[in-house]
């Protein structure tokens, strides 16, 4: 056990090794470790954020879906009501139109009847006059008895 120049040599070697490790070995590896730690932490935070965002989006979509459903129901009910109303309106309009057509037809019929009656009356009167004329060819003077004939016609 004797200390000699070897110790000095070993100190120099040690100093060089420490310097090398200090300058070239430690910093890149430490930086890689720290960068990775940071990126892992960032990734975890992003995943957590994504999860929260997904939950929020899920809730929102559910809300939108529920709203759409209720809105659709509302629209459907409204449409049904409207359809019933339209049918009702159509029905009443048709009824009014029908009534009107019936009334018109009735009036026309009446008119037609009265005209027919008038014609019939005229024709009967003419026939009666003609009959009477034939019977009373000689005795009856159309001019002298015009008043009488008119009265007769009116009676028909």
């Amino acid at each position, binding site marked *: 056990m004797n200390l000699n120049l070897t110790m000095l*040599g070993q100190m120099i070697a*040690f100093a060089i090794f420490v310097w090398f490790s200090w300058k070239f070995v430690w910093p890149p590896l430490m930086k890689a470790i720290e960068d990775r730690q940071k990126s892992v932490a960032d990734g975890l935070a992003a995943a957590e954020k994504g999860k929260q965002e997904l939950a929020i989006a899920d809730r929102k979509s559910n809300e939108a879906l529920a709203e759409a459903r209720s809105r659709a129901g509302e629209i459907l009910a409204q449409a049904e009501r409207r359809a019933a109303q339209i049918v009702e309106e159509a029905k009443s309009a048709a009824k009014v139109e029908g009534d009107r057509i019936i009334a018109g037809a009735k009036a026309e019929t009446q008119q037609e009847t009265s005209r027919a009656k008038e014609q019939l009356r005229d024709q009967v009167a003419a026939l009666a006059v003609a009959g009477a004329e034939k019977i009373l060819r000689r005795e009856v003077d159309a001019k002298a008895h015009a008043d009488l004939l008119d009265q007769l016609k009116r009676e028909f």
Partner: protein
Amino acid sequence: MASEAHEITSTTYISHHLEFFKKSVGEGSFWTLHVDTIVMSVLLGIIGLGLLWLASRKATSGVPGKWQAFCELAIDFVDGQVKDVFHGNRRFIGPLALTVFVWVLLMNAMDFLPVDVTGKVTHAFADRWRLVPTADVNTTFALALSVFGLMIFYSIKVKGLGGWIHELFCSPFGGNPLLWIPNFLLNIIEYLSKPLSHSLRLFGNMYAGELIFLLLGLLASTSILGTLIAGILGAGWAIFHILIVVLQAFIFMMLTAVYLAMAHEHH
């Protein structure tokens, strides 16, 4: 070892394996280099840091490769340990602790190599070759004294030269002038004990581990039964030694961090 011509006794076997490959570069015993220690430690340092550098060169913050993941594990482990004891900027203390841990671990791990097998290789270029650089006090003292120097440096940097000297005389007992001398003596003892215990703990563990392997090698040479027993015991010791190798590297790293953390504290 077998290449020696003269007869091998227990003493020569052990002492042969505890001899360094020395190279004298000047007058006096100080000017000697342990070539084996320096070559082994520098080689291991280059391998260890080179492998780490391989990962850091292509480091990506995306999906890491297997090797990068392993290196990140090591860095994260060291950084976590340092963070527990040292509350401050770890930009330098972190890599320092990592270097200490990786380097000391690899140097300690050389203890697993069977000395008489590697001897066949090393004897090709050297008569003596010790494999475990941390079983050389020069290595452990070099590390501990470097840490000691950093400790003084950080003490002065954090507290200022005046603050540091004030602390030397006025803590732990208080600022009374009568207590200056006891305070100072206690601080000197503390400062001396730190690098001593730091380095000798590692050295002692690795040296003892090496010695036990040598003793088992000696037992193996006695007879076939001895070889069998030594093989079993050697396996057991090697398994137990895995714990010691890692533990001592860990303790050395932790003490480095703790000492430097203490240097940052105000008393």
